[in-house]
């Protein structure tokens, strides 16, 4: 697909060489590991999931209200949203009239 083209272009530029994996955490990326490393992988995954499950969460209604409040409070300063007074946007002038 068209989307793939960019990534494949990058891949073909890689120099094909030995890729050495040292650290135990990298084993996440390997498949079919047997013995101790796959066990320690699973233990690490379970610990990570426990950590993520213990995160304190708020309701979307509250989170959304706060996102909205931030937008509205800062809207007047947002030059791409409401524009700024003529003359104070340096990019407004075409290049030939730019004051250096």
């Amino acid at each position, binding site marked *: 697909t068209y*989307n793939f083209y960019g990534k494949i272009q990058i891949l073909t*530029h890689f120099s094909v060489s030995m890729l050495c994996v040292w650290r135990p955490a990298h084993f996440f*990326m390997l498949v079919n590991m047997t013995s101790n490393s796959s066990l320690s992988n*699973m233990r690490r995954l379970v610990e990570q*999931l426990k950590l993520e*499950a213990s995160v304190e969460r708020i309701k979307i209604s509250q989170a*959304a209200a706060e996102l909205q409040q931030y937008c509205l409070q800062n809207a007047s300063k947002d030059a791409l*949203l409401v524009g700024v007074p003529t003359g104070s946007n*340096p990019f407004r002038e075409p290049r030939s009239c730019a004051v250096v």
Partner: protein
Amino acid sequence: SCDFAAFTFGQKYMRSPLSPEMATQEVPLNETLAHLKTESETLKLKLEEERAKLHDVELHQVAEKVEGLGQFVMKTRRTLKGHGNKVLCMDWCKDKRRIVSSSQDGKVIVWDAFTTNKEHAVTMPCTWVMACAYAPSGCAVACGGLDNKCSVYPLSLDKNENLAAKKKSVAMHTNYLSACSFTNSDMQILTSSGDGTCALWDVESGQLLQSFHGHAADVLCLDLAPSETGNTFVSGGCDKKANVWDMRSGQCIQSFETHESDINSVRYYPSGDAFASGSDDATCRLYDLRADREVAIYSKESIIFGVSSVDFSLSGRLLFGGYNDYTINVWDVLKGTRVSILFGHENRVSTLRVSPDGTAFCTGSWDHTLRVWILMC
């Protein structure tokens, strides 16, 4: 001790030192493994349940009472020409006028975007310079790509000085550099790589300060939280995951997996309470960090090409997305609707950043140019 595995192209082998004692432990090991697998599945389900409990309303429903945005006309006011090949990355200087950009042919250029003049140019020893960043002081730039490194070039006031002579190699990965960013000062750089990791480096010594493991494939992008919100950053990768990290401990503190393809770009909402992502699945999404879940999807049936880059306007109301179909789509973050579609580039948009004071945004493209856009009103 750690096991050592090596891959060669087209072939993989493993060497694992099994002692005779371990052979007799086969059965208990398999039982423990199965037990852990069940536990991990249970935890994943619990995570989804906990997140779902708080899903009491949609963002766009909360935003129903907010006034809609009118017509948006945004135009290119500057076109920066000078790269000889695809522009892959760009970054603004804190002075709101200078820009650094990098391209496939190995060139890194520093521009004055007001005048469109080139102030510095350096040729990297590699092609596909996928990452570049301006130092907070404005006195240096960092860049890297297929060389697997991130190098820092101090910018000299003397235009004739050879920048390459003062180059400092800072980061070393085992695969391509996909993104880099200075932290709050010129002293530290955060990098992401095709080797699946992110890393924090000391610029002066080149020392690795912290590494971040957890992605299961190439990491393609990263963004630092706004300084007021503390020491975290978000990364996105080919494993479709967006991970939020604690910079001091190296721990992944939150993880989001709702995209259906590679995440090419991540950017924090200006308040630091949320972040947006852009993906090859043709959608942008908004994740709220305190609700710990996705809260909006920005998509249309007519948009089928991947998003390469995203950024917010100053207030966070607008989300700009650069797409592989050469366009920029502008989204109303609260209502979830598209407010504008911008044409101009003649090939895919590969990079997009809003200027530090929010007066303009810049896009870089495979058509070899960069464009600076503002709102016309």
